């Protein structure tokens, strides 16, 4: 086929050195100042010391860009959308061949058979070297729910994972299924962890993850050539070890018991704590309060909206986003813990009342027996 042949010509061969990030930056017209700024910001975001900045600079100057395959399974592409809005989007997008010939459905140049071909080429040419990045969940009820190029999501993922150096699960979909896995989960959507074998896996949680967090994870891989330290749920600790609650600038209001009770009350206007409006900050691990969004402009709580807890598994199924009542599933109906408790309490009191009547009849009989 002529198309695939010409496509193959464009691909760098495995022996041909790939350009470094810095070379690519210069070629795209990014000044050295901007490049250094990016490196410094990444070090800060990762919580590294000053001495790490030269290391990052050196890594990006000398190491070739990472060959990557970026899969889009059951998702909404918000992770990609987030990523291209990174603080230094040009540099960030140059961390890997984002818009070149490797495989990413949204942003790559080829389409159709050419696209499939370019994925296969990357898989064979850079076997054992490429990073597999996955957006989206995998359906388990029926493979037909998600097929690309005639192959099921499960198949694509399993094949691509075989030759990968490491796997990054972008966002809540690839980690925990996100909205597709929300009750009743019609497609049986699950995260990718069970399909990638024993490959090293990083969960970059969030719906979507913060762009600078995504860039930070890649910079870490490039600079240190090792996985970042992960928490119990496989998330990089540099970004997911602190609760949104503990890094919240409204925390003082929480400790002082100053709460907004509705979105338009006086307390909301004063910027009080959004805990009673269902804020999930106390159970959510993310860097929103520190790195913030859109180049550090703001984040949901700063904009007056409670945290939805989007970097936690199953956040769609925890009842209303705007209430702290937690929903308990079971018996075919959903109830809050307090309703269940009160219902059981009523049953208990009724039982006690009935028992007390019986006891008094017994006692009366015993008293009457005494002469």
């Amino acid at each position: 086929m002529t198309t695939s042949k010409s496509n193959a010509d464009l691909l760098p061969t495995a022996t041909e050195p790939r350009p470094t990030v810095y070379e690519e930056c210069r070629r795209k017209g990014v000044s050295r100042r901007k490049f250094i700024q990016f490196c410094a910001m990444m070090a800060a975001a990762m919580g590294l010391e000053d001495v790490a900045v030269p290391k990052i600079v050196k890594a990006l100057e000398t190491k070739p860009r990472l060959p990557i395959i970026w899969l889009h399974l059951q998702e909404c592409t918000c992770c990609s959308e987030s990523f291209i809005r990174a603080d230094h989007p040009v540099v960030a997008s140059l961390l890997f061949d984002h818009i070149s010939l490797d495989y990413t459905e949204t942003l790559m140049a080829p389409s159709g058979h050419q696209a499939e071909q370019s994925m296969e080429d990357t898989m064979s040419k850079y076997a054992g070297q490429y990073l597999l990045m996955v957006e989206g969940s995998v359906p388990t009820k029926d493979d037909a729910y998600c097929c690309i190029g005639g192959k099921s999501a499960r198949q694509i993922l399993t094949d691509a994972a075989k030759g990968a150096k490491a796997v990054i699960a972008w966002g809540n979909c690839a980690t925990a299924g996100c909205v597709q896995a929300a009750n009743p989960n019609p497609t049986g959507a699950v995260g990718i962890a069970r399909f990638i074998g024993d490959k090293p896996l990083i969960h970059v949680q969030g719906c979507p993850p913060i762009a600078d967090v995504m860039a930070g994870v890649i910079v870490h891989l490039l600079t240190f050539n090792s996985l970042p330290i992960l928490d119990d749920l496989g998330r990089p600790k540099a970004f997911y070890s602190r609760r949104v609650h503990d890094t919240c600038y409204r925390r003082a209001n929480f400790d002082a018991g100053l709460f907004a009770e509705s979105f338009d009350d006086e307390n909301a206007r004063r910027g009080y704590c959004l805990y009673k409006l269902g804020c999930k900050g106390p159970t959510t691990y993310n860097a929103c309060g520190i790195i913030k969004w859109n180049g550090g402009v703001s984040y949901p709580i700063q904009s007056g909206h409670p945290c939805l807890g989007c970097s936690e598994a199953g956040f769609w199924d925890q009842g209303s986003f705007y209430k702290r009542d937690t929903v308990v599933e079971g018996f075919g109906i959903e109830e809050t813990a307090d309703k269940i408790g009160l219902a059981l309490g009523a049953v208990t009191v009724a039982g006690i009342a009935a028992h007390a009547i019986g006891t008094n009849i017994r006692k009366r009989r015993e008293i009457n027996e005494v002469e």
Partner: protein
Amino acid sequence: MKSRKRELREVYVWELPVRFFHWVNALCICVLCVTGFIIANPPTLMSQVEASFSYWFGIVRFIHFATAFVFMFNFIFRIYWAFVGNRYATWDNYIPLRARQWRNVWHVLMTDVLMIRNEEERSIGHNTVATLSYLVLLLAAVLQCITGFALYAQTSTLPLFQWATWITPLLGDEMNVRIVHHLLTWFFILFTVIHVYIVFYHDYIARHGLISSMIGGWKNIPEDVAEEEEKLEQKERRRSRRAGHAV
């Protein structure tokens, strides 16, 4: 005048450490439930003060956490006492392995719960249904401590509190840990309601002075019940001595 003569004997049932445990535990459960519900849904008490001048919600949370430690170590102490305490406090009351204990379950069901029969109360310490309910209470307390400290561990860097964090990945995320913690609170409330009612019931019907025994430790036991217990105790002692010789 309605009266009758009853031969009674005073029996020292609840030792001081057992009574101490009981009342500390009762106090802890009350404090933890009240502060727990405040934390789950805090009332908006003030709205006109500066955050820097007020800390009441922080104090409520502090009381909850501090009481949780008392609650846990109190239980650990009671488990210790289950190995060194008297015959009414030992662990084998709470894990019924003897046929006699299961016959007692049947007696309690027929006489006290369903009131089909009217047999005399012959337990001096806890009956077996009661001890089983305390076993369930212990399990609930363990689970409550694990879920509570898993939530607490995130604000503490001391490794002492990190022992419980394994529950979080198991339940998915911290919101689920919170749900379990909240539901178990209701278990403690329902337990308390039933427990207090049954205490009243026993004093009402069996008249062994159960309520005062929770303060003083002594119960008024009918002579024949006390004698039966004494014989049983001697028999058990003989048996254990014989087992000792065999070894």
